[in-house]
């Protein structure tokens, strides 16, 4: 059952929000010891469900998602609930306020089940760097769920929640959605408030939904997409009509496929699956055409320079004084900072802080940071040019399907290279989704990447919804669920 179907059933009175919450808690009981999607399961779930049920009856909550149990990535502040960001640094952190996205979804009558596991500080593509241990892929427990929103994607795939909020700095919604066979969208930069989202790379970070299908994603996005006075990089989204997603027709739509997305390193099963998805869209009346986008090869270097630079600056707030982890023994103030940070952060976080310090340090700033910002301008320019011709751009989300646990953990560069198709989208600030479109020979899911122009979320999710009307990849579930 999808989130919207459940919401409609609750509205009709056939199931109560409390029964729905009990069902989800039962699913968590049954599966979470195996997949480790949740870092925290809230103890107020049933109380919240009762409150929501009353407010639905009183006509206060009218959203089609009211009463539907959901999960929140552990980097979004939720009042009184541990928000760890997958790190020892924030293990004891209980925010005294809600993130705006959390507030908005609560106003729609959401019933949050708990906080979902992630790579530490959202830095990683496997959800293995979490202080709380690795999340497992429900399609194969020996595989990673992707990351950094791995807990969010796995929980939806395992049926432990009906939808989840994730965040995407370089692919962290789309890549786990692809690896776990669920639908996820990173909206246009600024369209969902970042207030209360633990900062990683502020010019790239964006919150978005992961769900069973495109229609659910549109419904969730409709609730959280709003300009916010508490986030001065948030943008007005008045022109985006997500209701139009449900009767979208791809007939006459022009779709471009960058040939550079099909270069070295792309798994042949993934390539074949994406080609088949393109043919499917063609048979539905879209025209599909290949074009060159040579800037692709510079996306990863530019991304890791910019993201690490912003991370090193953002994470300087963790000083062992205001909140977060504090070392037990220290000699002076500097020692307090250094020991608290050295003990509180894991290796990948330390690596990115050091890389960020390097690219920003005097003598290297121009060659690295400034150069990366120029590359970013060229990447945006390449997309601008492509969107003069195409409605959507199609390609793979990731070069492979889900990797085995531990496969890339000791080889950071290899892990970074897996982000080739996703990081460009964050650099350009564009919206893009991952939509289930098949499986590889091992039975692991493959997602297609649908990239749209700024504020074209309706076009992306509309095409995805139309595709999901004639395919059933998104309806398949892991064998044991």
């Amino acid at each position, binding site marked *: 059952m999808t989130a919207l179907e459940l919401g409609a059933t609750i509205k009709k009175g056939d199931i109560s929000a409390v029964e729905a919450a009990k069902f989800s808690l039962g699913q968590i009981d049954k599966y979470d010891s195996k997949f480790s999607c949740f870092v925290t399961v809230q103890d107020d779930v049933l109380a919240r469900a009762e409150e929501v049920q009353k407010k639905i009856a009183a006509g206060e909550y009218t959203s089609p998602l009211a009463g539907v149990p959901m999960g929140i990535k552990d980097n979004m502040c939720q009042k009184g609930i541990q928000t760890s960001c997958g790190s020892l640094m924030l293990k004891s952190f209980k925010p005294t306020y809600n993130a705006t996205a959390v507030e908005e979804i609560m106003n729609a009558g959401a019933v949050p089940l708990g906080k979902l596991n992630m790579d530490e500080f959202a830095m990683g593509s496997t959800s293995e760097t979490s202080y709380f241990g690795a999340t497992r892929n429900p399609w194969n427990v020996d595989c990673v769920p992707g990351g950094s929103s791995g807990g969010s994607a796995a929980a939806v795939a395992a049926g432990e929640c009906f939808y989840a909020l994730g965040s995407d700095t370089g692919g962290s919604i789309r890549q786990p959605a692809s690896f776990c066979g669920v639908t996820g969208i990173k909206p246009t930069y600024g369209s969902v408030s970042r207030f209360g989202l633990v900062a990683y790379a502020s010019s790239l970070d964006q919150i978005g939904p992961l769900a069973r299908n495109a229609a659910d994603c549109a419904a969730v996005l409709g609730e959280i997409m709003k300009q*916010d006075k508490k986030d001065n*990089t948030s*943008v007005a989204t008045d022109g985006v009509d997500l209701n139009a997603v449900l009767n979208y027709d791809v007939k006459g739509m022009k779709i471009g496929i960058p040939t550079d997305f099909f270069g070295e390193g792309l798994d042949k099963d993934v390539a074949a699956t994406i080609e088949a998805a393109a043919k499917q869209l063609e048979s539905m009346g879209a025209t599909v055409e290949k074009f060159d986008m040579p800037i692709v090869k510079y996306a990863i270097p530019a991304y890791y320079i910019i993201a690490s630079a912003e991370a090193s600056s953002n994470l300087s707030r963790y000083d062992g004084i205001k909140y*977060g982890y504090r070392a037990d023994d220290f000699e*002076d*103030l500097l020692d307090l900072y250094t020991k608290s940070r050295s003990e509180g952060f894991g290796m990948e976080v330390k690596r990115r802080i*050091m890389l960020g310090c390097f690219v920003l340090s005097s003598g290297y700033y121009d060659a690295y940071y400034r150069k990366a*910002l120029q590359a970013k301008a060229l990447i945006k320019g390449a997309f601008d040019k492509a969107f003069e011709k195409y409605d959507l751009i199609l390609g793979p989300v990731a070069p492979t399907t889900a990797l085995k646990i531990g496969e890339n953990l000791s080889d950071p560069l290899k892990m970074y290279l897996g982000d080739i198709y996703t990081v460009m989208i964050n650099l350009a*600030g*564009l919206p893009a989704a991952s939509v289930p479109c098949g499986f590889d020979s091992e039975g692991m899911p493959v997602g297609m990447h649908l990239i749209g122009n700024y504020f074209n979320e309706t076009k992306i999710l509309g095409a995805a919804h139309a595709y999901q009307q004639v395919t059933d990849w998104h309806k398949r579930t892991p064998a044991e669920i």
Partner: protein
Amino acid sequence: MVITDELVTYLEALGRIKLPEESRAKAQSDLQEILQYIDTLSELDTEGIEPMSHALPLTNVMRDDEVQPSIPTEDVLANAPAQKDNYFLVPRSFE
């Protein structure tokens, strides 16, 4: 660009972190490998290209300049690892 042991020490100091002794060598070679890859960016011709910090033209989102209640002190201090008399507690920082 060669990542020397001295550079690792410098970056640790800038980032206010200290790597565990046993993972230093690996961190050094990882950083070297990452930097070597990142250096491919130097091939890209960026002559005359304006560096871009934000892809979308952003305008500041302004609030009205109205007096609002401050965050209560107890909320501000709620997550502090150490506090005293409504202040954050820190070690002596000057003599």
